[in-house]
């Protein structure tokens, strides 16, 4: 120690600045350091929450995009499907899906005989239960579309039932199958044999994005098709109504309206409207659009109108802010060379404000896309299996929406719906990310051109 001190004495070269901080400066610096720590802690907590949320959703939901399929040769028995051999489509249509179920049982029996697989003491009836209940419906649709194929043997790729699918996703085990009423260990053994024979495969499942919702008896067949289309229709309605109305309102208020107490009141109300809880718009929508105007329940048009009301304040506020950001010199220059007020606004101010307006609109739409509460009240939280038609009629057909589908699936009893609800959240998040990315791109690319 003494050496060091003496060395320092010999060559007086201070390691730090000569400036001695007084107590007050030290306190201020300490306060700043503390504040920075708080900031880092806050961000860390937020990031951890986000990572936790995303990883749990991805962990639960990514398996929804894969599904187990079983390939079988089915003999379309004329004795069952077309009893008098007339080939009359009206008569063939009389055979319900209950009449198609035995065909699958038969085709299992044939498969057992042909390839020698099978579990001792297991009946073909139990084997047939490994196929989704969607299977007979698919068969029937195929036969009605191709009645001339009756009497032929056709290879089908059926969805495996939810429990068999769960076995390959780790949800069902041999142990849980023993106490599970809906699946037996023999079925799982047979599934393994089928897999070894190449007849059973777990692969990417487009059906999750394209199929309609399904009942609790067949979670494996449930998809997001109707919900995605319904959400898309609603967003079209919101875009077509909220953008023109919102932009027109803002231009008028910002550029033309006289400054008096009426416009002040309107301004305050628009800001207030932005803070109104969304469920209030649902009540309004039920009262005005359904009960008073007589629009149909569960229809995207009503959902779109309700979400329009919700999105308008966001768009108006964003538009006004971007109109305000255009420098007054642009207006003055336009007016100075003889443009009318309207020409100045539409030829010069509006194009310059457009990126900001679009960004605000897309953020408003993204907000509307994820909204559930108002849709609860207008009948969108329903089991809808029919795809809505093409617009404009399709706007009036019943449809679901993405966030509503998540809500619906979390309430179902079958555990297979848990993974599908998380899968639906992933799809919703991807859409939201895309919309926000577009908003950021637009802002980067076009903002500040002067």
């Amino acid at each position, binding site marked *: 120690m003494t050496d060091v001190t003496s060395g320092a004495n010999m060559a007086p070269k201070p390691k730090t600045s000569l400036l001695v901080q007084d107590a007050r400066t030290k306190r201020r610096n300490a306060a700043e350091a503390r504040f920075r720590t708080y900031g880092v802690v806050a961000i860390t907590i937020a990031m951890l929450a986000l990572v936790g949320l995303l990883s749990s959703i991805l962990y639960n939901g990514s398996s929804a995009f894969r599904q187990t399929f079983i390939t079988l040769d089915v003999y379309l028995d004329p004795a069952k499907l077309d009893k008098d051999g007339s080939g009359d489509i009206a008569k063939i249509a009389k055979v319900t899906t209950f009449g198609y179920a035995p065909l699958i049982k038969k085709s299992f029996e044939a498969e057992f005989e042909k390839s020698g697989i099978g579990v001792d003491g297991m009946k073909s009836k139990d084997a047939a239960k490994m196929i989704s209940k969607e299977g007979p419906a698919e068969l029937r649709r195929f036969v009605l579309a191709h009645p001339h194929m009756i009497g032929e043997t056709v290879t089908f790729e059926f969805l495996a039932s939810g429990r068999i699918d769960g076995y390959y996703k780790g949800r069902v085990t041999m142990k*849980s199958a023993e106490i*599970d009423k809906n699946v037996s260990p023999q079925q799982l053994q047979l599934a393994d044999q089928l897999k070894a024979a190449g007849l059973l495969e777990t692969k990417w499942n487009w059906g999750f994005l394209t199929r309609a919702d399904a009942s609790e008896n067949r979670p494996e067949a449930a998809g997001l098709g109707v919900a995605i289309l319904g959400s898309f229709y609603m967003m079209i309605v919101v875009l077509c109504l909220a953008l023109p*109305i919102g932009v027109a309102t803002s231009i008028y208020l910002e550029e033309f309206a006289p400054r008096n107490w009426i416009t002040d009141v309107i301004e305050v109300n628009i800001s207030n409207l932005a803070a109104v809880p969304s469920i209030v718009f649902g009540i309004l929508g039920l009262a005005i659009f359904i009960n008073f*105007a007589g629009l149909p329940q569960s229809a995207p048009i009503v959902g779109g109108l309700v979400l329009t009301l919700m999105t308008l304040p966001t768009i108006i506020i964003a538009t006004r802010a971007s109109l305000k950001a255009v420098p007054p010199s642009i207006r003055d220059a336009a007016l100075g060379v003889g443009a009318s007020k309207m020409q100045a606004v539409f030829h010069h101010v509006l194009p310059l404000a457009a990126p900001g307006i679009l960004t605000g609109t897309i953020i408003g739409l993204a907000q509307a896309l994820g909204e559930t509460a108002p849709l609860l009240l207008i009948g969108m939280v329903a089991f809808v299996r029919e795809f809505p038609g093409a617009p404009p*009629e399709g706007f009036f057909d019943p449809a679901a929406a993405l966030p509503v589908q998540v809500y619906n699936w979390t309430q179902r*009893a079958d555990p297979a719906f848990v993974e599908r609800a998380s899968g639906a959240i992933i799809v919703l998040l991807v859409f939201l990310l895309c919309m926000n990315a577009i908003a950021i791109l637009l802002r980067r690319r076009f903002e500040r051109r002067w």
Partner: protein
Amino acid sequence: MSFKLTASAVAIVAAASAADARDQLQIKGSSTVLPYATIVAEAFGENFDFPTPVVEGGGSGAGRKAMCEGVGENTIDIANSSSRIKPSDIELCASNGVNEIMEVRFGYDGIVFASDINGPSFAFTPADWFNAIAKEIVVDGKLVANPNAKWSDVNADLAANDILAFIPGTKHGTREVFDKKVLEAGCKATGALDLLIDANGGDKKAGKKACHALRTDGLSVDIDGDYTETLARLDANPQAIGVFGLSFYQNNTDKLIVATMDNVTPSTETVASGEYPVSRPLFFYVKNAHLGVIPGLQEYIEFFVSDDMAGPDGPLAEYGLVSDPELAKTQDMVANGTPMGPMN
């Protein structure tokens, strides 16, 4: 504001003129009936030339209220209900011009008591439940605030688990059945009913109502969500016992162990035979004025109660419905469109 309202009003008028006649059935009501209704709706859409009906949940009361809103394309056709329609509903219906309602009982539902699969199994009686979660119970011939903390305090034969019960909230139809078939029965069996009637000045009705009062020290928890929430709560508290629908239990037999009631194990068979005491009928109510107007309505209700669907081997029974032994009578009634008579 006014500008916006005018603009949206214009949009509505334009929209309304484009709307055409409804061709899909609209159904709303009980969340207990919802899975059955969706299974039928799905099969109906597959096998008939009509589009798949739209089925909404929301609760029995909400469904009946929506049905009673009036007649016309803008109102629903069928209300699903896990409890019988109330005279007040019928009055509301009548005041809105909904006069003929068809009451269709399509089966029964059991209510089961289940706990985590890794825990001990229980054999309850209604009296056990009353003594475990009622506000006041009988000790030495007197009503006292419930002192029990463990199931073994209630009944020495039960496991020494802490009492923690997740029961359906008051907005559920299931709670009504629980109150009536479990709490009232237990109240009577333990002798608390007589004491409560005396305490209410001999008023029998008030005495029965007092049986429904539950302890408020947190050992009995109302669940206002659905059974998935109850299941999640059981996951977090493996000691607890939850109240479920029979069908929900049957879809989760790998997670839950079911308790017997009066030594009867709940199953579709014991509920159908009436041995298992805690069960209730399930209904749907049809607005007769829509029969023949909304395409597919008659076909849907006939399909619902057909042997293929609601019979003992049908897909509804497979999901957990207890088939109605008098289904044939219901089928006749539905075929003739017989409206329900005055309530007794």
